[in-house]
């Protein structure tokens, strides 16, 4: 490949990056499916205090409470016949999340 071709490829790449940076700077949102395809009913959040375990259907609130905890670590747990993979904990209180819920939480503005 000649020097000229390398420069053309570099320039096109740089131009695309510049466009992306301009869009980011001026907060131009490109239409996307985003989280509209996320089915919150499939997500699982389990509140655990001492021997008390209950599922919490308000996933957004669960995400916020989980975010408030001291640690969030990957740890396998079971609730009813379902598996949860993440444990967010401070002291005796834990929020167990399955991977879908945890990934969803990670995308929220409060996380």
């Amino acid at each position, binding site marked *: 490949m000649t020097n000229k071709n390398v420069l053309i490829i570099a320039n096109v790449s740089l131009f695309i990056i510049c466009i992306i940076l301009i869009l980011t700077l001026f907060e131009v949102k490109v239409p996307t499916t985003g989280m509209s395809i996320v089915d919150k009913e499939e997500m699982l959040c389990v509140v655990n205090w001492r021997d008390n375990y209950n599922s*919490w*259907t308000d996933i957004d609130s669960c995400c916020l409470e989980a975010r*408030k905890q*001291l640690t969030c670590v990957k740890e396998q747990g079971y609730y009813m016949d379902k598996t949860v993979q993440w444990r967010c904990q401070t002291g005796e209180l834990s929020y167990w999340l399955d991977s879908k819920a945890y990934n969803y939480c990670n995308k929220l503005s*409060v996380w």
Partner: protein
Amino acid sequence: MRSKKIKKRRESKKWTIHERTFLILIIVLLVLGTLNVAKASGWLIPEQPQLEIIDNTIKLDSMTLEQKIAQMVVVHGGLYNMQAFKDMQIGGAHLFAMDSEGSYSDTISQLQSGLQIPFFITVDYEGCLNPFANFINATTVKDIDGIGQAFEKGSIDGKLLHELGFDINFAPVVDLDDQIWGCRSFTGDEKEVAELAEAYILGLQSKGIIATAKHYPGKTLVIKDPHKNIVSAQISSEDIYPYTYLLGKDEVDSVMVSHIITTGVVDSGGIPSVVSPNLIMPLKKEFSGLVISDEINMLGLKNFYPTLDELYVDVFKAGNDLVLNFNEDPNEIYHMVLVIKTAVEEGEIPEEQIDDSVRRILVAKGFDVE
């Protein structure tokens, strides 16, 4: 011969169009990258002017509208975006769980340093929620079975919070029938819960900490219908009893309003409680303390609005004095302030209402207000 050589050299140094484009793009990229980093860090948010505070007195007229609105906002108090929130003169910073007493003290002292109007430093230390569990073993409200014990717990919690540098504890929860955690509210019927909560509040406030009865008007601890994105509940006279008891005595310094759409003895008019003027305005007429919104990025509330801007306007318009927005991006917080500023300038939200809220906030922070 020599001049020919020089000319040749000059010609060979001449840059091609591709090389020049490359150089220009690199420069543009560096500038844009820097601007993006500056923006993400909140460095592009303008700093508000210094206030004239004479003899601990603040004149509301001397505050800009942006300063007043910013005072009504509580954000998540992280250190990485701290300067942007300081420049905006935000009203409060909420702290999550940390590993040690030292981490809290360092964070709070860094947050508060150099501020003319200090942040309200807030926390959720309630029921069985203990963000200090890594270094403090505390009893939960579940373990309390008497008024004396409730007052003592309030005093102990208040002393700890005061020593750490907190101002507001979003506690106690006075909603009945905790079906999810099983440990956030006091045990007993509505009268017992109200009396225990009163004792806890008096204990907490005796140490200089603002207590918060939450989440008005109740029913936030019950298991909801998973098929409903927007949560609604029927409020009974039992549910509302602890609130009428505590607010009627004017003993609690603040109350937090939930996102639930309510019917029954408290009717939010088909909209979430936190954006319902029908629910909040009568509350403010009877209650001289602070009305605080629950965190506003929650599903039950966001699903109700096509855009966040409309949500912001309605939360302020409803009459909340303090608005909890834990969005980590300072630019979004500043955007919210600007949206509210526009709404006030266009007459959608009366400035007198903003002034009333700011007055309540500044008085609670220990200032005299003119």
